[in-house]
């Protein structure tokens, strides 16, 4: 069934058809519509879930942790400062190996106060142990919601997906609402390993662990992340068979014969396609590659995508202060062990919601094609 939904409501409907059992969330612009819709769904009985009103994002995640540990499928949504406030509990959720799913609207961090998009809120949560998906379209959002639960529950790690503030969150698109029966077939009820009822013999979780075993528990988390990468591919295959849509961790656009490839993420992945088409019309063999997965980082696919290219570019809508764009660092790191080292341009564009236009994307493509990189950060679309 086709439905016209904003990105935010795609998240709400995603939680509904994935049959979330507990929703605990605190409203924050530009995520508020997600929570409003979910509370309506719970009140109307469209979603058979317990909606927990909380006083902060920290409490929202704490409630999800309790719900998930007791065996329920738990969901929350937040953005920016809310995600930052949640930080301590993000670590708790992953270390406790609870498959909570969250949607985060990528909104720049303040001050100065802002509600427009960039990725610094989630990029700075890099080492929390959460699987991270960066979405390009509303359809991808709703589909990722379903897949995220299935992946998270298999590897026992939490997962979040991100939506660019306003460019996705508040933009309406016609999208295919996956059939409930098919979704139920794809994603069965959560079978938890954990319970919180002491009379049934359930243990207490997260108890004090000294240097004798903490190290090994960390290795188990890393192994789960590595396993997640394979499961993401496997689940995407199954999803494609059942629903006809595919989302690879690294997705090329006109890259088959490309001499040059520009890596992007989020909604810029859509914008750059027009610029790539324009460059192709001008006879330039260039393509783009959307990186949808940030953790686990899809190193193998990055290497495959970079192979045999004359020069590469990376567009980051984020910055690691004192270093460079985060995807730029990761992509260079993935290629270091390879025998080929094509030159790589690092661009930073669109911070604080600054529009990345087709023209500015075309300029970045031109720089990749015509020039060698001279510095680690090439600011694009800034008033310098």
């Amino acid at each position, binding site marked *: 069934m086709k439905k016209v939904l904003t990105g935010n409501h795609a998240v709400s409907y995603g939680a509904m058809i994935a049959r979330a059992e507990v929703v605990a969330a605190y409203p924050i612009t530009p995520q508020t519509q997600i929570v409003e819709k979910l509370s309506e769904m719970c009140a109307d009985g469209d979603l058979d879930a317990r909606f927990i009103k909380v006083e902060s994002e920290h409490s929202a995640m704490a409630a999800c942790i309790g719900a998930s540990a007791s065996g329920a499928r738990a969901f929350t949504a937040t953005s920016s400062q809310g995600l930052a406030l949640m930080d301590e509990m993000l670590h708790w959720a992953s*270390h*406790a*190996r609870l498959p909570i799913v969250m949607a985060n609207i990528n909104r720049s961090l303040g001050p100065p106060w802002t509600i427009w998009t960039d990725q610094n809120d989630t990029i700075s949560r890099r080492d929390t142990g959460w699987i991270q998906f960066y979405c390009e379209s509303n359809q991808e959002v709703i589909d990722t919601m379903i897949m995220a639960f299935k992946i998270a529950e298999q590897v*026992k790690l939490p997962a979040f997906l991100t939506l660019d503030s306003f460019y996705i969150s508040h933009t309406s698109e016609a999208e295919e609402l996956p059939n409930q029966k098919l979704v139920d077939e794809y994603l069965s009820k959560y079978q938890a*390993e954990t319970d919180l009822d*002491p*009379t*049934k*013999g*359930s*243990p*207490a*979780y*997260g*108890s*004090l*662990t000294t240097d004798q*075993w903490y190290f*090994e*528990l960390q*290795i*188990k988390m890393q192994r789960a992340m590595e396993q997640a990468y394979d499961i993401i591919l496997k689940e995407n295959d199954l999803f494609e068979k059942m629903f006809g849509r595919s989302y690879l961790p690294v997705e090329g656009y006109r890259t088959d014969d490309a001499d040059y490839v520009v890596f992007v993420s989020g909604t810029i992945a859509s914008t750059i396609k027009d610029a790539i088409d324009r460059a192709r019309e001008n006879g330039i063999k260039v393509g783009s590659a959307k990186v949808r997965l940030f953790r686990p980082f899809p190193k193998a696919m990055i290497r495959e995508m970079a192979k045999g290219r004359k020069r590469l570019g990376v567009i980051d809508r984020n910055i690691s202060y004192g270093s460079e764009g985060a995807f730029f660092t990761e992509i260079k790191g993935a290629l270091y062990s390879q025998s080929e080292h094509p030159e790589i341009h690092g661009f930073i564009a669109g911070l604080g919601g600054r529009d990345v236009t087709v023209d500015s994307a075309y300029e970045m493509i031109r720089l990749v094609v015509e020039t060698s990189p001279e510095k680690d950060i090439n600011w694009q679309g800034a008033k310098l």
Partner: protein
Amino acid sequence: MAKNKYFVEIKSIDDLPTMAKTMGSMMVNETGSWRNVYPVVDKDACTRCGICWKFCPDVVVSEDADGYPVFNLDYCKGCGVCANECPKSCIAMIEEGK
């Protein structure tokens, strides 16, 4: 404290659970062993208001047939929150072994 029948020896990473957890439930992990003071209620002064029951962070307070508080010393850690909150100051914290 009885020996924990859930105890398993961990020798390698493969024996470890996915996440750190207690061996057996809290029914066998009796946290009362952490205590160095324990609560004693003066029934003559107690008004059976239930505030100690309400505030106990370890849920060890229940009531006897007459409605007076009873403390489950298998789990009471001796934090003294009950004594602090009691409006009649009729809960004393007594040092263990005295």
